[in-house]
């Protein structure tokens, strides 16, 4: 999908690229890594995160919920790889399981939020006129709140649970996606092939989903990756504030809360490791998002 839209979104230079033999998939990966080393690094970290999240039970050395009075505030090294927390749980295992929460909340909310936003934005453009005006004013209203404040308000109303985090973040991502994709859809709407689609008798749904949305996908993919990083931080923030994931579920933001704050001078590993995990993962996702934008967004092509 990404391949199609990138190679057809712009006409000129792409034809020349199409003539060049593509090479094997590994050669393509290699060439991408040479052209976008930071993006490749981001992709590798993202991949590691996905593997860790998927195989958490095999990677974790202990049950993340298992308490042990003997290991309270145990320093990293000896018995526990990254130390023990205030009730003697293994920090490493909790980090591994926390990756699941981060990835689940991040992926799902970025995906759902951007998808709904895209459909709203494109639909708004397709119908135009009063429909567009009304939808855009609703989007304006939602955008008037900072995304995180909006998410906090929604969480306060829904209560703390992982799925509610996803819902809150999806809603927070929706308006900006709708606005950005609206701008893209406005140019797509004026293209002759949309008129041609109407001329063969295509209905509204067919025009929106089959003709307009595929032409907006490059921008959508970029937005999803950018949102992923933001979503991971946002989930951590909500959990840190105690209104995200319930405290018994291991999550990176939650691990920074409570004892980690109070005893950071005595047991720095409580704060340092989850903090590092968040920082590295978000940094990597953003690098990946940037690289993808360079590759997929035709407007930025050739400006490297």
């Amino acid at each position, binding site marked *: 999908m990404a391949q199609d839209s990138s190679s057809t979104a712009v*006409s000129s230079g792409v034809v020349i690229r199409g003539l060049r033999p593509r090479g094997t998939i590994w050669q393509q990966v290699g060439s991408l890594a040479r052209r976008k080393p930071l993006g490749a690094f981001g992709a590798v970290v993202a991949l590691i995160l996905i593997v860790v999240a998927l195989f958490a039970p095999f990677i974790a050395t202990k049950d993340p919920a298992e308490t042990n009075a003997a290991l309270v505030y145990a320093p990293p090294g000896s018995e526990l790889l990254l130390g023990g927390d205030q009730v003697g749980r293994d920090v490493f295992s909790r980090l591994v399981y926390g990756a699941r929460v981060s990835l689940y909340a991040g992926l799902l909310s970025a995906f759902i939020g951007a998808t709904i936003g895209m459909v709203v934005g494109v639909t708004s453009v397709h119908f135009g006129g009063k429909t567009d005006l009304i939808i855009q004013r609703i989007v304006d209203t939602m955008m008037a709140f900072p995304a995180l404040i909006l998410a906090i308000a929604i969480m306060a109303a829904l209560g703390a649970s992982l799925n509610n985090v996803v819902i809150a973040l999806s809603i927070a991502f929706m308006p900006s996606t709708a606005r950005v994709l609206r701008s893209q859809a406005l140019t797509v709407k004026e293209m002759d092939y949309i008129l041609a689609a109407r001329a063969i008798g295509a209905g509204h749904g*067919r025009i929106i989903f*089959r003709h307009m949305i595929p032409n907006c996908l490059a921008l959508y993919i970029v937005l999803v990756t950018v949102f992923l990083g933001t979503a991971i931080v946002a989930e951590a923030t909500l959990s840190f504030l105690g209104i995200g994931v319930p405290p018994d579920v291991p999550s990176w933001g939650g691990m920074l809360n409570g004892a980690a704050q109070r005893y950071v001078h005595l047991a720095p590993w409580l704060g340092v490791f989850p903090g590092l995990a968040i920082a590295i993962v978000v940094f990597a996702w953003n690098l990946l998002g940037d690289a993808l934008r360079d590759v997929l967004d035709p407007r930025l092509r050739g400006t490297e």
Partner: protein
Amino acid sequence: MATLLEVRALKTHFFTQAGVVKAVDGVSYDLEEGETLGLVGESGCGKSVSALSIMRLIPDPPGKTVGGEVIFDGQDLLKLPDSQMRRVRGKQISMVFQEPMTSLNPVLSIGRQLTESLELHLGMSKTEARREAVRRLAQVGIPDPERRLKQFPHQFSGGMRQRVMIAMALSCNPKLIIADEPTTALDVTIQAQILELMKHLSREYGVSLIIITHNLGVVARYADRVNIMYAGKIIERGTARDIYRHPSHPYTLGLLHSVPRLDLPRKEKLDPVEGQPPDLMNLPAGCAFRERCRFAIERCAEEIPPLQSVSAGHFSACFASATLVSRAQEHGA
């Protein structure tokens, strides 16, 4: 032959902030089954808008068809509900557009675009539609249709894309194809191929054709009848032969003179129609062509000349048409 399409006093106006643009202002004509009609005029005279009005594809806002009737196959298209109109588009009437480079969706394969109207209107299954699409591609002269079906528009040249557009237009066996400057964006050798193809296919399937163009050569060769449009109105109508042999409107005469001719010495200058077309937002009283017209008389400033019969089946909207015809006869003699 039965009448397929009757356009009666069609009026399409654009309501802009600066005022009302009367793009099509009272256009009437008929089209017989199997006939090819040429719609000729310079840029901005309302050719394309009148065609899009038939299909009800005028962007609204700002455009609106404010009056008239479009009777196609016994029903007034302007009164049909949207859902029924969608069944007319692509199935009964289809269109070929001017720009083959942009009228195919760049992210969908040719196959998906060709099968779309088949699935939509004829309820074909994917495999049936695919087989039909292959057949249609072969019919419009695209070699290796099986392989081409999987390709994307950027892998096709302009002429090939226009062939694909024609295949799409033909796919549901429509009764009428409206071709809006189908060859303007193509080079001359391809233009001839595309027009020959359209003519051949329309003859084979008995499809009526409306060719919108500003190329009089195209009209002379391919159209049975011709409507010449100026400032949103038809100012002359007749068979292609009438229009060429006995042009009866000064504008038609001007158009014919402004075509470069290979059979005349090159040193002679072209004789263009001087001046600009009038502002469609505030048309002058009387004849819209008056200010550019060599034959203008006082009466032209006062009333709009109606479309009057010059000879059987030949109409002109000019007070001086009688003079023009007699002059042309002198020339001929």
